[in-house]
């Protein structure tokens, strides 16, 4: 592929993930210049999305920029890693205007800072003062239980699992019973009409 050779000159490797999906991994220092060259030199005019993955165990965020050309026939993912603590990224809203809202969301959900971003304010959440909710060290369940406890049951509610089990067992028992009854009935009938068998044999 043409792009692969171009990237090779920049000593970057293009990895094919699927037949329309490619990946480039780059370090943070070279990210901005690479994205610029993707736009200006390689013709990747569309920024699809900016994604963030929280690698809690390794202590960094993996950021992925998905780019497309005008043809829309394949996607290139530009991937980089940043530190989780005081995470910060260069803002792309001057290059792709749509990046403004994506970065705003990422700031809200992961707490990534974008120096120079004009509207780093509330996006979907209002007045959120807790840890950014999509970080993996944010204990959602605990938060939910403290903020929104479950409704107290009325008392007449039944455990669905056990009820289903009971129901199934009852059904099974009924089936077995019916089979047994059918067998005994058949046996009785056989005893009552022995001549038929004889006739048949004949």
């Amino acid at each position: 592929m043409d792009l692969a050779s171009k990237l090779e000159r920049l000593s970057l490797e293009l990895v094919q993930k699927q037949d329309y999906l490619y990946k480039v991994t780059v370090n943070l220092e070279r990210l901005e210049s690479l994205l610029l060259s993707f736009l200006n030199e390689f013709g990747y005019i569309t920024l699809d999305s900016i994604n963030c993955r929280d690698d809690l165990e390794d202590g960094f965020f993996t950021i992925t920029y998905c780019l497309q050309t005008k043809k829309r026939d394949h996607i290139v993912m530009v991937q980089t890693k940043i530190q989780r603590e005081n995470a910060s990224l260069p803002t792309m809203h001057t290059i792709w205007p749509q990046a403004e809202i994506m970065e705003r969301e990422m700031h809200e959900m992961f707490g990534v800072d974008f120096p120079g971003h004009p509207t780093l304010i509330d996006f979907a959440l209002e007045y959120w003062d807790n840890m950014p909710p999509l970080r993996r060290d944010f204990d959602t369940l605990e938060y939910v239980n403290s903020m929104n406890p479950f409704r107290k049951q009325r008392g007449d509610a039944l455990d669905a699992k056990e009820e289903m089990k009971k129901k199934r067992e009852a059904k099974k028992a009924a089936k077995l019973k019916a089979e047994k009854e059918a067998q005994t009935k058949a046996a009785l009938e056989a005893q009552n009409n022995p001549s038929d068998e004889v006739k048949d044999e004949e």
Partner: protein
Amino acid sequence: MESGFYGSSLDDSLKCKFEESGLENTHKIMEKAVNWFRSRSIFVVAYGTGCGAIEMPPTFTSRYDAERMGVIGVATPRQADLIILSGYLAYKTLRRVIRTYEQMQRPRYIMTLGSCPINGGMYWDSYNTIKKLDDYIPVDVAVTGCMPRPEAVIDGFVLLQKRIKNGEKAGWEKYDENFEFYKDNQKRVLGGHIDPSYETDWYNLKSGGKA
């Protein structure tokens, strides 16, 4: 605290007059008549909070035609009697819903669609979705299902109409009586950034009112 900021003014003033002249029965009949008219004409502001919003167009248009029961959609909360909340409510939505509800004129009713407003539904463990709507605003009719079909919604209308006709105690009266309870709950979940309640000076009632 005063209970019922907007106590039933029409009924109270009339009641006194009728009682003075010994005509309690007339008052009762009048009240019944008014209740019947109220049940026959319900203006709805359809607040599409979640996926259930998609069930409202068929309810109000040719297929199911809620208008034949006197239920018709309006655009502003000022004119509405009933607000339909169709689905889960995020905190952000809740703030707007409270605002819309407080802008409606009494008597006012709330109907919810789906299980999310009752127990969070499939969003039960979301960091951003409330689980019990009736903690924050009084729900009159909850139509269950995920999502309820228009028939179920119409069934909800019928139930509401029956209640209005019988003069049962409605949610708005509970809201006025337990205003502090509701406001405390709202404040707990929405934090300190709760919208001003213009119809009752809630802040001054709690702090400046007594001092």
